[in-house]
């Protein structure tokens, strides 16, 4: 395989790629991890309104250290700013937004995505000693569109996270619309993963070789 001829995106690169596809006017929730970085790549004059589960509507750029407001954090408990036109709501109202279909888009990280749109992002096994559900199950079923941002393959063994069937416990069934990885952009369709984009230099064969699910092409 001609691996030397392409350069996988880094985490910021994935975030920037996603940012390209978000039009002005969308109301968007960004999960913890790669997704949080997406807002850095949306120019302020393209008005996209970012929501955080803890009741923040209209997240602005990260503050300078001397401007940190301890009363203002995002869902990852990082200091943030609020942009002009933003608003605060309480937690039940915030999840009314998330669960009630008011988010044009939610971007989550994941361990695995399956070709039927299943997502697994909270546990690697049923009995593991961590229970990191948070708001992901609410966001996954509630948003109008769910996109996933993740590395295409696991770090150690290089196993594919793009699956025929998820092997980890599910976060939600059949909800993922699109996956952005360091290698490609995949749309979940009735027939399986449709490749919308690949990093320059990557071949169809090389991508399929790194992917457990069968890929389809436009």
């Amino acid at each position, binding site marked *: 395989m001609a691996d030397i001829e392409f350069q996988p995106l880094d985490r910021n690169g994935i975030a920037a790629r996603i940012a390209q596809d978000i039009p002005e006017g969308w109301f968007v929730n960004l999960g913890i991890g790669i997704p949080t970085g997406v807002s850095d790549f949306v120019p302020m004059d393209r008005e996209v309104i970012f929501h*955080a*589960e*803890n*009741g*923040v509507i209209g997240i602005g750029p990260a503050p300078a250290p001397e401007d940190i*407001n*301890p*009363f*203002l*954090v*995002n869902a990852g*408990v990082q200091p943030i700013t*609020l942009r002009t036109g933003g608003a*605060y*709501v*309480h*937690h*039940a109202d*915030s*999840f009314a937004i*998330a*669960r009630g279909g008011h988010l044009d888009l939610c971007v989550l990280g994941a361990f695995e995505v399956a070709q039927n749109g299943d997502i697994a992002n909270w*546990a690697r096994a*049923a009995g*593991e*000693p*961590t*229970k*990191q*559900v*948070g*708001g*992901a*199950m*609410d*966001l996954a*079923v*509630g948003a109008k569109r769910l996109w996933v941002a993740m590395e295409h393959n696991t770090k150690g063994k290089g196993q594919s996270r793009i699956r025929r069937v998820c092997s980890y*416990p*599910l*976060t*939600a*069934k059949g909800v993922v619309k699109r996956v952005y990885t360091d290698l490609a952009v995949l749309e979940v369709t009735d027939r399986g993963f449709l490749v919308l984009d690949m990093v320059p230099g990557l071949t169809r064969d090389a991508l399929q070789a790194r992917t457990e699910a069968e890929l389809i092409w436009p």
Partner: protein
Amino acid sequence: MINKFVATLAEAMAGIQDGSRILLAGFGAGTPELLMRGLIEQGAKDLTLIANAGGRMDGPIAELLATGHVRKLVCSFVRADSEAGKRMQAGNLEVEIVPQGTLAERIRAAGSGVQAFYTPTAADTLLAEGRETRVINGRNCLLEYPLAGDVALVDAWQADRWGNLTHRDSARNFNPVMAMAAPLTIVQTRHVVELGAIPPEHVHTAGVFVQRVLHVPMLHSPA
């Protein structure tokens, strides 16, 4: 004259019974940390703690858990490397994981007289195992019940003597919702204001949901 202010932390926490269900607000900001210390000092045992997350190795939740007074934790998120995670793994702490939005909605249900509700959140996950589901308009939904507290611990920015509250910025989070869901809502507030100083269209938590208010002027960072 209605006056919900109490003078001391001990007075604020008086009468909390063993076996109580404690709603603890806060999400990075807006956690009533002094009231948590008061709960430890007060000494009630066999508690159920309902909070967004299980905390870390230090901080108010870890300190409360370290007393051994918490039997059960209901939350959306437990880190493996936290006091809660370690106690859970050692079998010393019962943990019920609830998706964060379902957690907020169950608490609101308790405060608003909803006796149960159906949500698609978590319906097709391990969290639904053995539980009642129902297909509504083609979506698989999970039946969820209200989550009430005996006591709610709440943080505020301003409070008046009727217990009307404002919350600052994202320190609002669970505070207004949890205040609704317990017969004894105890508030720590940074600022005390005259009745009427909070305009009626700007009250975030109405006094009807508040029983006791403690003025804690120095706890927060200045502003």
